[in-house]
């Protein structure tokens, strides 16, 4: 697991109900939180995509779309590193590591009908951030996204 560079300052903590569409709220809250943290516009776009996808997974798969179960967020900063954690209650269902076992999406296979047209979320997350870690502790399942503010916008 990618270690968090300590000391880390927590910038925000909030939760959303597990209702499809609420990932928009999460993206907005995270964007507002990190707006002044020195990320480039390109990195902000990437972080927004990664947060949106991880939140959708938490809503749909971790919390099984149950609105009474919250998805919990924390945003940390340490130096030029931003860390966003997204936690749901699907830990016991994910004990085998759903993220690790998901089949890699292949456009050619999807066009041939060998894979569902969907299933792009994890690919997007992994390529949008510098590190993605998954932590399961009992029923609590947490995805931790790390992005480092070193990219130029050329």
């Amino acid at each position: 697991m990618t270690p968090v560079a300590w000391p880390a300052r927590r910038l925000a903590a909030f939760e959303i109900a597990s209702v499809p569409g609420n990932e928009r709220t999460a993206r907005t809250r995270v964007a507002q939180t990190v707006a002044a943290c020195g990320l480039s516009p390109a990195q902000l776009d990437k972080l927004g995509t990664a947060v949106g996808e991880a939140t959708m997974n938490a809503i749909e798969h971790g919390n099984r779309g149950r609105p009474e179960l919250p998805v919990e967020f924390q945003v940390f900063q340490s130096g030029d590193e931003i860390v966003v954690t997204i936690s749901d209650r699907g830990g016991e269902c994910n004990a085998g590591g759903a993220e690790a076992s998901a089949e890699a999406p292949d456009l050619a296979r999807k066009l041939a009908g060998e894979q569902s047209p969907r299933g792009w979320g994890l690919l997007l997350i992994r390529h949008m951030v510098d590190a993605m870690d998954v932590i399961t502790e009992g029923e609590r399942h947490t995805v931790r996204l790390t992005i480092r503010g070193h990219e130029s916008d050329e």
Partner: protein
Amino acid sequence: MNEAQGSMRIRRVGDAAAVIDIAGDVTADSEPTLMSAYEDATDQGCKRLLLNFGGLEYMNSGGIGMLVTLLIRANRQRQELAAFGLNRHYREIFELTRLDEAITIYESETSALAGGTR
């Protein structure tokens, strides 16, 4: 209805081409709207469909899945799909998913209209 749901407006351009102007968010919820626009274009005999992403605000993996479904249908009908108006972020996503190998990407509507069939 999701307040951020995108809109898709179809414009006929030339004899056998149509532009679908996309605005707002493109997610799995957009599928009925996009497929309705696609069917309208197909009913009009369009063999070339140009997706204008100039008004796109956000597209997620559900939206990408929807584009894959559109591609499958277009391939069956031997129609060409092309796109323009993508910003850098979404061009990168098209490259990451290899959608750019199946959907020709142009810099502008003008160049997209000038592009021939592959």
